[in-house]
């Protein structure tokens, strides 16, 4: 009898353990992760006031880097930071008010147009909205 109850108890215990092994991952899975969604369409690129006028910042957007520029009039512009020449990450030069690629001296203007050097195409431009304290960058709403 004792053995029987022992085995019964053991079945109950292992069954519960298995239940825990199944339910624990499910519970953790259901809890949303730190970043609630894959940042492919929109992302918070910076906080308001983080960038000085004439400053810039590269931020991750989906799988690629993006660049956020604060122009002289205080407005924000955002582009893909992947140079259309050979893929280096671009930066902003406040003195010439142009986006510049250090690898081969490619230059883009503040509309993203490729104006000088090897880049064959303009940079993809993103929409920027200031929502509360966040500067949100979103893929452009094309037709």
């Amino acid at each position: 009898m004792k053995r029987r109850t022992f085995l019964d108890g053991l079945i109950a215990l292992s069954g519960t353990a298995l239940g825990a092994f199944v339910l624990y991952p499910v519970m953790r899975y259901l809890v949303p992760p730190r970043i609630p969604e894959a940042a492919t369409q929109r992302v918070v690129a910076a906080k308001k006031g983080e960038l000085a006028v004439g400053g810039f910042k590269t931020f991750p957007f989906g799988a690629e880097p993006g660049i956020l520029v604060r122009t002289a009039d205080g407005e924000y512009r955002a582009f893909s930071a992947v140079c259309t020449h050979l893929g280096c990450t671009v930066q902003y030069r406040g003195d010439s008010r142009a986006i510049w690629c250090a690898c081969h001296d490619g230059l883009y203007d503040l509309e993203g147009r490729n104006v000088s050097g090897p880049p064959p195409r303009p940079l993809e431009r993103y929409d920027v909205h200031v929502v509360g304290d966040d500067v949100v960058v979103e893929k452009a709403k094309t037709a």
Partner: protein
Amino acid sequence: MTAARVVPGRAGGAPGARAGRALRALAAAMLALALAVSVAGAAKDSCVECHRGLDEPRLRAPVAGYAHDIHSERGFSCAACHGGDPADPEVTAMDPDKGFKGAPSRDQVAPLCASCHANAAFMKRYNPRPYIFSLAEWQTSVHCKRESLGDQKVATCTNCHGVHGIRTPRDPASPIYPTNVPRTCAKCHNPEYMKGRPVRTDQFALFSKSVHGVALLEKGDVSAPACNDCHGNHGAAPPGLKDVTLVCGTCHGREAELFEGSRMKAGMDAQGRRGCVTCHGNHGVLRPTDDMLSAERGGVCVGCHVPGSAAENGTREIVMSFRGLAGSVTAADSLLRVAEIRGMETAPGRESMKEAQDRLVGVRAGLHSFDAKKIGAALDEGASLARRAADYGRSALLDWRNRRVGMALSVGVILLLMGLVIARIRRIEKA
């Protein structure tokens, strides 16, 4: 003597019909005359007509060549350069009184070409943005200088451009098309031709193995420099420029800009050393590698910097940080690769690694400022990014291990449960 008179009313029919016949005859006569004139006009270039049929190849060849010449296409006849009268079908066409000059001697070639090509108003009739030949520029060249000293083995216009059969520089068949320029120059600038002269003769050999030469000659990349891009065309001389960085800097602007403001340049100027070529060479410039950046043998620094000097210590600092970053990137890469092989997702780690690599690429250019602080800052940034990538790789591997532990535990529990259930089955069926 009887005058043949057309008497109206006499043999021939009605007056109107006879007038008609006369008009037709007149028209026919005029047509014949026009034809004769045009035939004569077609043969207006007696030079071509005559020389085409000559036996001697030297005199016959120019005709065939000139058919493809840009001057011919623009409507210039032989007489434009040689003088004479192309309308004269006889040998008198070559009468000096008619302006015939014959083939110009070597030292007459440049002035002859310049008589049109240096004339801006004239050239503008054929090209809205013409290249105006500058005799003054030509006179700065070694070719001109030596020629004026009586050297007959020195290049003049025809040596590079051809003579009968000149094509525009944009024509790939032209000897001055960028990919053809090195071989054109090498027709003279080679050991055999230059024998006995106190000049280097290894330029073409070095150039064809250089990164510029390979790009231009093997890959056909016309953005790579040919001889004239650094030496000039008509003012060909070893760059007597203020310094050679101005030459290299026309394309490698970033590096030149950084170098201009650097202490390295100031130091080199003080010692009379040339920028760029001291470390990179000139004709034989090869693709730079990280090995060049070394304080040991094989690196370019040790050629000038004496071991133990302050400059050499500065070199060592930069070299160490650079190698450190390169090493960190490699280490992060192998960690991530192991994680990937084990089936873990590594994209965020790879992103950090790419950013670290971008810093490395940036520093390879930024080196030319020789500013240890700036370079150090960039390298430090890169190092922290590489660390982040490596950390991601390590946590991926830790995850992998944890998964296996979790799997082992859960499979263990399942097996236990299976055993217990089987035992229960046995128990209830034994009864």
